């Protein structure tokens, strides 16, 4: 068996098996996130949410998927066909790609690469392409406006997110995601870097185009923004891509600030993956909670928040962190 796994074919088979072991639960998670969001929103608005298909509406995601599959895919005349079809695929594939480096438990990452955090940052910054391409290829002014908004929004919030990540990296001394989690064995970074945690969370909301920053969709003024013209499975891919991105961002926040697979106070270290999933679920719950609570931002307020509040604040906090680490001699590597 070991001899087989050492051959190129064996490596390939192992990688495919690992990928499946990650992606299948992930896709189920995405399906049930759509259900959970509707349930939670329902509870917060004193409704019942989906409760007809299956017990507690548990089969609702599958009913939705079936409905989407049965619909006709409409490609508007005047659309750029190739790009129009490519855009939802790009969104969905990128949402899946990031998971290659996520360590679910100590050593449980499919690709434990040295620059894991940069890879994740790169993948999340590419998410904007699916949206821009969709908006442009649709040949519709609503879609186009949505795409432009999203491009400016995602580029703006990446900057402050970059500073947050650099601050965490200063405390860790490594770009490897496993190392980042290991550095939090005794103290989750959420506590010493609490303001950065908040900035990271809000930037993640903006980065995934979630309420209150869902201006690219903006149904009150742009109908549905960048995916106005999409129907059937291509729409479903956008929809699932958004939820997969939410889970990816929650995983990133969990790794950077919530101590990954470590339980609180070192509780039950054997349950690593479970702690990881629980923390992701907590982040996702807050995502939904925010959506139920806050009205949508105005576009200039959004830009102001990104550039005039978050950027200076995270920059100052970064310098402050560096000073504190240097003065107390806490810099990793003992420099």
């Amino acid at each position: 068996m070991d001899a087989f796994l050492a051959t190129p074919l064996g490596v390939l088979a192992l990688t495919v098996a690992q990928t499946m072991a990650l992606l299948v639960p992930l896709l189920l998670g995405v399906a049930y996130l759509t259900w959970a969001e509707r349930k939670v929103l329902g509870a917060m608005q004193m409704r019942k949410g989906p409760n007809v298909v299956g017990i507690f509406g548990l089969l609702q995601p599958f009913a939705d998927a079936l409905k989407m599959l049965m619909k006709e895919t409409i490609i508007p005349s005047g659309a750029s066909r190739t790009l129009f079809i490519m855009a939802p695929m790009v969104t969905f594939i990128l949402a899946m790609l990031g998971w290659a480096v996520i360590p679910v438990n100590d050593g449980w990452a499919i690709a434990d690469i040295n620059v894991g955090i940069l890879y994740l940052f790169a993948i999340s910054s590419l998410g904007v392409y699916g949206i821009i391409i969709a908006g442009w290829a649709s040949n519709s002014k609503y879609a186009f406006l949505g795409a432009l908004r999203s491009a400016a929004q995602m580029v703006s919030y990446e900057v402050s997110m970059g500073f947050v990540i650099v601050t965490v990296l200063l405390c860790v001394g490594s770009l490897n995601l496993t190392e980042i989690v290991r550095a939090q064995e005794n103290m989750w970074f959420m506590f010493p870097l609490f303001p950065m945690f908040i900035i990271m969370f809000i930037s993640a909301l903006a980065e995934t185009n979630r309420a209150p920053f869902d201006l690219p969709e903006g149904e009150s003024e742009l109908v549905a923004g960048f995916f106005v013209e999409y129907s059937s499975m291509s729409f479903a891919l956008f929809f699932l891509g958004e939820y997969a991105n939410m889970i990816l961002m929650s995983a990133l926040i969990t790794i950077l600030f919530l101590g990954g697979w470590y339980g609180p106070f070192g509780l039950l270290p054997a349950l690593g993956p479970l702690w990881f999933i629980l923390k992701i679920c907590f982040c996702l719950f807050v995502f939904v909670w925010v959506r139920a609570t806050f009205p949508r931002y105005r576009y200039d307020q959004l830009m102001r928040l990104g550039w005039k509040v978050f950027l200076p604040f995270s920059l100052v906090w970064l310098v402050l962190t560096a000073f504190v680490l240097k003065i107390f001699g806490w810099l990793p590597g003992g420099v």
Partner: protein
Amino acid sequence: MIAAIAFYLFAAVLIASAVMVVTSRNPVHSVLFLILAFFNAAALFLLAGAEFLAMILVIVYVGAVAVLFLFVVMMLDVDFSAVREGFQRYAPIGGAVGLVLFAELIFVFGSWTFADDAAGLRLNPMMPGADNTREIGRILYTDYVWLFQLSGLILLVAMIGAIVLTLRNKPVAKRQDIGKQVSRMGSVNLRQVRSGAGLAELGIERPPVDAPPAPKQVEHHGGGHH
């Protein structure tokens, strides 16, 4: 073997997409091909063992610069037939410039010599135990820190220059001044009103009200909305 195949694949796609950037009729397609070219360059970096550079290339160029490119190209409705108009006339000049650059490259390549130890390094580009992120950091921030800071300063000056050139502070332009809005007084007042007093008694003028319009005759159609 696999690395060689991957190299030729990425290199071929890189060159093909670079050609497509120049030859595409649609500027948006050009930018998308440019992004594909960036990706393949990043893949080549990865194959060479420079994973930090690969990721930075994707983050900076694909994630930010190309997005803004795409943004601008989509916003400007460039009429490319007008741009191509003088193509025939300017082709010789362009060709001459290209030829000069090409000749220079050939001269440089002809006089290129490898250092004595370079052959060994080429076979093993990563020193054992060296981390590529750490090494780049050491070179940039320790060995050449002043030059690095200087280049940053030059960029800062360029940025300020661009802002100064484009900053328009015309009094005609309407822009939001949040401080002014917040401190604004007088247009909306709170008044203490005697209970039961009409507006006329308080001296507040209202536009004269015409006789109320006669209620519209509601037509009843057969069947209907309840």
